[in-house]
């Protein structure tokens, strides 16, 4: 393996992106909806949940597949259809990013089917994909981490192409868990606002294709410059007050990407709208010299889609770049984080070349990645 480092690939591309969410089944539809300020968050009292969340209602349930399996099939198919050729099986890795997969099976006592690896096998077999596969389950940073890992694998020559699919649903399991933390907001979440009252959950599936070869894409891809993760080493269920891990992840990501903070055009933050998370991010961004950068969170549109969030939000950041549009951070009105941030209050046309994406999660984990227009 070691010899491969001498054959490092220069640019790793990311593109052929798809989102399946309550706001639509294509990237374009999703971006159009959020550009109009539409939120997926609404009340679904039929589920017995008193807090609003983003629920996917319109989808094709495929024969013998679950809802999540069906959504993943659709999302992966949609991404692969944006390539101009089939990827070589032996040079391609499929990564599933999820926190809980099809955990609904557990309510029926089926442990085997509750394994995220089972979910991925079901989808791979339905799509008759023969490439290698693996699953990354690293709480709320899973999606960003999967893309960073995919980047590193391609760069080091282990694979030529990596398909990352992020997927999670809102289940009784997840909802009641977050409820027990008193983390859920009775109103749609309001990241970075002074009156934020907690997070909203959401369902989503998103896919990206990373490759060393820009010729596989039908539409022009972007460059994924690199990223890193770091642990707060502080607490398993609350973020570090000093933003320790996030600051370290951003610093290392900049180093990996060869980017300086003044080159960043906007930051797509994690922004869950819990008091502690948003305060922590504001402190970490200050420490990283990003305090003046335009920043947003997409959680006000989709809620927290957990294992899908990193991929879904990367895709929306990619769309912001392709459309040279800063998207307002929905739910934000008044400044109210520990350190002031330049939160995007209205959509704005702006030349965007370089973007920083961050994520933080339970277990004290943090990740940061940098994208750039070619």
């Amino acid at each position, binding site marked *: 393996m070691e010899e491969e480092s001498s054959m490092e690939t220069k640019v790793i591309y990311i593109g052929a992106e798809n989102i399946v969410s309550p706001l639509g089944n294509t990237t374009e539809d999703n971006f159009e909806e959020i550009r109009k300020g539409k939120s997926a968050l609404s009340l679904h009292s039929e589920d017995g949940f008193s807090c609003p969340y983003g629920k996917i209602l319109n989808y094709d349930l495929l024969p013998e597949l679950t809802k999540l399996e069906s959504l993943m099939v659709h999302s992966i198919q949609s991404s692969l259809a944006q390539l101009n050729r089939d990827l070589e099986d032996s040079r391609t890795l499929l990564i599933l990013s999820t926190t809980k*997969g099809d*955990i609904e099976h557990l309510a029926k006592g089926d442990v085997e089917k509750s394994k995220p690896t089972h979910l991925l096998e079901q989808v791979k077999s339905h799509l008759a994909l023969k490439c290698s596969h693996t699953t990354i389950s690293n709480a709320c940073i899973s999606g960003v981490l999967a893309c960073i890992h995919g980047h590193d694998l391609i760069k080091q020559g282990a694979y030529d192409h990596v398909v990352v699919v992020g997927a999670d649903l809102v289940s009784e399991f997840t909802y009641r868990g977050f409820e027990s933390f008193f983390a859920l907001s009775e109103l749609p979440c309001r990241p970075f606002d002074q009156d934020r009252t907690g997070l909203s959950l959401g369902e989503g599936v998103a896919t990206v294709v990373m490759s060393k070869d820009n010729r596989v894409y039908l539409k022009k891809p972007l460059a994924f410059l690199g990223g890193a993760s770091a642990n*707060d080493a502080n607490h398993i269920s609350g973020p570090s007050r000093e933003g320790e891990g996030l600051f370290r992840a951003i610093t290392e990501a900049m180093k990996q990407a060869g980017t300086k903070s003044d080159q960043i055009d906007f930051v797509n933050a994690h922004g869950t709208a819990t008091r502690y998370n948003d305060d922590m991010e504001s402190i970490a961004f200050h420490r990283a010299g990003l305090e003046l950068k335009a920043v947003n969170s997409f959680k006000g549109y989709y809620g927290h889609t957990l294992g899908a969030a990193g991929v879904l939000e990367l895709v929306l950041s990619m769309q912001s770049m392709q459309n040279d549009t800063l998207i307002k951070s929905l739910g934000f009105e008044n400044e109210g984080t520990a350190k002031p941030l330049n939160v995007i209050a209205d959509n704005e046309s702006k030349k965007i070349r370089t973007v920083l994406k961050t994520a933080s999660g339970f*277990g004290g984990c943090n990740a940061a990645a940098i994208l750039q227009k070619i």
Partner: protein
Amino acid sequence: MTNFEITYQLSIDPNGIVRNGTPYDFKLNPDTYAWMAELYRHLKIEYPKFHKMDHLCKLAFLGVELLKESVDCTSFDKDRVALVFENSYASLDTDQKHQKNVQSQKTSPAVFVYTLPNILMGEIAIRNQWYGENLFVLNDEFDVEGWKQTATTLLKANKADVIIGGWAEVLDQHFDLRLHMIQRR
């Protein structure tokens, strides 16, 4: 040319504890998980947070404590120790407990927080103040070469000097830890 080598191996399973190929002197009764607290006392650890952890976290935590008995980890750069763990059942051992709590409408945040497999890396990071990379991977079976390939990605990218991790699985009465350390030579 950079070379990466597994410099330490430890296994804990119902047959006992084996460290670098040598059985470790500790009698382990696999019928209950009482051995975890016994091993904690045997190692003379004073860390009350241990008792709040679920079995998966305790297993990985004890593995790293055993590692520290034979390897001096204090000289490691705390930003350059990466944790890369893998299993197939994720956190389903604790997921079952939370699911029961949901069904009886008695959910507890102290249980729910352990319904993510990467929490074990959080516990190890907190204990040792290791700020480095974390990566939790799910695969059906443990293949040490596959794990090594995943883990060395971080060394090749120059994001870490040391990788600690491997396979950590707990489901009901089944437990299996295969702990490895890889260092840059």
